[in-house]
């Protein structure tokens, strides 16, 4: 029973995450502000609430590592 309950909880969790995905996508697109300065510099800004900001500040260095797919490719497998 316990195992079954755990499974149900996990399933509910997954459903919430999957359901939330398109909302995130729409939200992200609407909230990003894009501007171009006179000298040609492009600026992208995204306002997010302070709780997430705090979570980001406390994020580990590993979260930073995917700066681009270029490096991630090598780091993942061989740590070059």
């Amino acid at each position, binding site marked *: 029973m316990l195992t079954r309950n755990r499974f149900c909880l996990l399933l509910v969790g*997954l459903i919430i*995450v*999957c359901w*939330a*995905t*398109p909302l*995130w*996508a*729409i939200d*992200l*697109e609407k909230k*990003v*502000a*894009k*501007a171009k*300065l*006179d*000298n*040609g*510099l*492009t*600026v*992208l*800004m*995204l*306002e*997010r*609430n*302070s709780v*997430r*900001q705090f*979570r*980001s*500040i406390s*994020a580990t*260095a590993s*979260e*930073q590592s*995917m*700066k*681009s*797919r*270029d*490096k991630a*490719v*090598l780091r*993942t*497998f*061989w*740590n*070059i």
Partner: protein
Amino acid sequence: MFKGTTTIGTKNYAAEKKVLTQIEQIGQTLDNERMKQEKADQNRIKKLASRLKKLQNEHRRYYIPNEIDRLYTENGGLEMNASTGQDVTTYYVNLPANKIELWARIEADRLINPVFREFYTERDVILEERRQSIETNPDGKLYEAFMSKAYKVHPYGIPIIGYPQDLTYMSQTAIRHMHRKYLSPENMIIAVVGDINPSKTLKLINHYFGRIPKGNYRPTAIPAEPPQTEERKVEVLFDANPSMIIGYHKLTAPAVEDYVFDVLETILSKGRTSRLYSKLVLQMQIADSISVHNGMPATRYANLFAILARPRHPHTNDELQAAIFRELEILKTSPVTDLELAKAKNQLKMDYVKSLDSNSELASILSYYELLLGDYRYFSSYISHIDKVTAMDIQAVAVKYLATGNRTIAVLNKKANEDASTGKNEK
């Protein structure tokens, strides 16, 4: 770039500048003499090197090391760093939202008034980094050989860190030229994510970064890699356990095939139940590790779908290679199951959601796609494209791209004891 500006990292820039000018002059003369190689005057080299050392010691009287780092840290900054890949160079830092002006002042100053302090020391550091990560590293050596074999024309075949001959005599003039050309506002994206007010932030950015003069940046014409028509192979001999990289040329994002390859990468190697891992590592036990990467080495130009693998002792690269090819052939003849497809899509969606959690990750992703694909919205439409991928699409790309003639194989084999030489043999 991490050595400060005319106001940051110095005790007295006017006095420091005189020493820096002398360092550059002596350093350049020393390089010119060394470039003569066997004809070089060793006495002159000795004198110039000693003079350079004295000037470098004198420079330390004016230089304040790591001052930018200290400024950020004292103001709650975290993880200030930079990374360079084949496509982009990124500078990033996490700061409390009320310190955004400090960031704007520092970074704009770095772009407008950079001072390349400790140039010759840094050049030696990079050369040493190359020795450690490539010349004495089996994985680095194999990767370099693989990329230079896979790309004959396109600069993706050139290592990010460069070759020793590029680094040994690199001049400050070249660095200044690179800085002016590539770190110009037209070629740059700033992404700020967090607890900000966008209109105020834009005003602030405009105030500090708007001062940077236009650089008249014109993108360099990059030659396209001609289609590969026959299989290429390269062997690297090294005193290390065998390993291999197999790569296939393909289109890059936002081509539809790229999304299909993302799903295929997940089906083949993500997690213990993935095709290649479950078959070759767990069931047949002929591989120690296996990993698949879509988009090697980068995203801006047509790239590779690559498989990196290590055979498990006593199995050989040849045995493992044959098993991998058998699995790839199956993809061409029978479609992946609905379960595999659904699982891969769910994994990709999960990764997507996870990446939204971190502000720094989001800033990085937004700027990356805006710069490379001209539209940050590539990222927000990613999941809908993944959802459209079918089993037939996977079969079609397998047939079209995973062909023998489109394949490059690099293998690292253990050097035989009697062979004292190092290096690689090309087949």
